[in-house]
């Protein structure tokens, strides 16, 4: 009997399939939504879908979400679900930057990043080193930061132009969101694209990315093969805190007000984008390009539903149903390939 005939080719097949599923798959769905939009437009149900302005609006609308999701994807990739303290990190960094604007634009930026990264380091050390449950710990952390915000600023909203007379600093701050390169590309969009490229490079082309993958998919194996698991997890949380801070500055610049409610809802929305983008919660699978795809799909979906005149409330129902469906199909596919996702 020929031994070569009995070579198990399943591994090869599943690898190719899961690769297709995790990167191209989400773009196929995005293309489907795009086609749906074109179809609806040709049927006369919606107007102005395939205009460059509308397509730009779609990416603009999700650029902030994309920034948060790219960073949080590192946490998901490392097998630690999500960072539920993202909304309060956004609020705190925003409010700190506005408060520090009186000492100039540079100090505002530095202050925001110091605060944001500090939260990231605390999260990372507690979860990485002491192995606290990530969901519960970041939940507690969000409470603590919210308490700090409420304690120092009570329920005040602070405005950049009231805080300082420095017109230049205020203008610079306002322009974080409003500046447009060549009058087309907004700064958050550029940030998002840069972060996606950098994130994809870090995740797939550096030793850190490879070690994070092993950490995410098999923690014990990673530990026994000499990977500093604690450091990997801490770095993942710090990266997430970094992008969250970028988003926090942009959101605060957009609303021109530092307040405790900035950024509410960004935690769950980011998880949605990450999971739809093919990154599994078990860790170690997926890519940043996929997360970008997930973010774009959310943007397209919202845009089409709004153009169709679906109410905001009904959009929630559809969004939730699609979310569960995508994750369910994903889990089922992985299981049928023998790669159980539980």
């Amino acid at each position: 009997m020929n031994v070569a005939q009995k070579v198990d080719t399943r591994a090869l097949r599943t690898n190719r399939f899961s690769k297709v599923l995790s990167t191209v798959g989400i773009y196929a769905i995005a293309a489907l939504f795009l086609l749906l939009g074109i179809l609806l437009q040709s049927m006369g149900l919606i107007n102005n879908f395939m205009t460059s302005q509308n397509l730009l609006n779609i990416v603009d609308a999700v650029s902030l979400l994309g920034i948060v999701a790219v960073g949080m994807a590192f946490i998901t990739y490392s097998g630690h679900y999500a960072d539920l303290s993202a909304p309060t990190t956004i609020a705190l960094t925003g409010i700190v930057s506005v408060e520090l604007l009186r000492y100039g634009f540079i100090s505002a930026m530095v202050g925001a990043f110091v605060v944001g990264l500090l939260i990231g380091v605390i999260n990372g050390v507690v979860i990485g080193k002491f192995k606290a449950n990530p969901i519960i710990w970041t939940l507690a952390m969000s409470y603590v930061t919210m308490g700090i915000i409420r304690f120092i600023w009570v329920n005040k909203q602070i405005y950049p132009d009231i805080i300082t007379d420095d017109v230049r600093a205020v203008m610079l701050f306002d322009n974080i969101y409003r500046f447009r390169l060549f009058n087309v590309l907004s700064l958050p969009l550029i940030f998002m694209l840069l972060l996606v490229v950098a994130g994809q490079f870090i995740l797939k082309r550096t030793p850190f990315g490879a070690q994070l993958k092993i950490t995410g998919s098999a923690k014990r194996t990673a530990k026994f093969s000499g990977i500093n698991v604690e450091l990997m997890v801490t770095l993942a949380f710090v990266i997430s805190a970094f992008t969250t801070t970028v988003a926090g500055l942009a959101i605060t610049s957009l609303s021109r007000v530092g307040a405790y409610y900035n950024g509410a809802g960004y935690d769950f929305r980011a998880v949605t984008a990450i999971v739809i983008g093919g990154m599994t919660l078990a860790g170690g699978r997926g890519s940043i390009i996929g997360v970008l795809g997930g973010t774009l799909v959310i943007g397209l979906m919202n845009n089409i539903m709004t153009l169709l005149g679906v109410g905001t409330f009904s959009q929630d129902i559809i969004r939730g149903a699609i979310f569960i469906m995508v994750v369910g199909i994903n889990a089922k596919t992985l299981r049928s390939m023998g790669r159980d996702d539980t």
Partner: protein
Amino acid sequence: MQRLYGAWDEMIRKKLSDKNSLLSLGDRFRIYILFGVIFLFMSLFAPRFFNTYNLTTILRTVSMNVTIALGFTIVMICGEMDLSIGRTATFAAVIALTLQKHLGYGLSIPIAVLAGALVGLFNGVLVAKVKINSFIVTIGTMTILQGATYTITGGNSVSLSGDTVFAISDFLAKPILPMLPPRVILTILFVIMFHLFVSNSQWGRNFYMVGGNRTTAWLAGINTDRVTITAFVLSSTMAAVGGILFAMESSAATLNMGDNSLMYVVSATIIGGTAMSGGKGGILKSVIAVLSLEMLYTGTILFGFGNEVKIFISGLILALVVLYEAYASYKHEKTIGQRAELLDELAQMAARPKV
């Protein structure tokens, strides 16, 4: 120094493994101790804390979250997570009050409870059969329920008026026994029922087994899927009941009434000693933890602090408890497989003069 520390560590470990030592008891009953300390402290120092009116108010305020915590604890014992409890409470309350206008409470309450149970069934089937992570499923359900609630009400809160409605809400709120309005008595009945169910029945033990080790439970012949689904159904049903009772008492349902409950109940359950990994915890502990948190909140407000201190304190307590648990298991993991007495022997051998 190192050896001294090692000896101290060893002593602590021995004390903890001895079930009857003071330290071990303290660790196991920490929530009751916390409860006692908070109660004593507030009674002694907080102005206007220790009187019938205030204590009745605390019991009334807490009964919604206690009811929600009953089911949620079971889900946690099973090692799963249900993030949709708050929104389920709102959803059920809105259904009950909206239908009350057409059908009366007699029909609207069963329908609302059934709706809650269906939400739980949906969650449970997706978690147990489709095998999606419960965290993700319930985030999805949360979004769907939010949309459904707003669609039903058109974005406004629901309020009722009419003599019969107010008679019912008055009846629920007015104490018939000292300090005990009917709503609180109902909650206490629920607590007793759930406590007996979880700690004294075979079904209750199954929850612990599935949470402790799913594979072992399955090998022992437990239908793990059915147990998980039951846990989710119970959780959503109790969340619905809690929301409905709250709405009945106030004759109104606002669209964010349940939003605070999620964080509240999750914190309380964890502070009460139910582990996120499952297989540990108890109904009574969660109930006591909810009570302790509420007393703490009332106390801070009586001291004249605002809402911000309340948020800060609850975050700090949750953070400390999580940190303590994480640190304890970190220590445990470090010392596991290590034998201190062996190290001691080695040290003695090294110290012995060579023959």
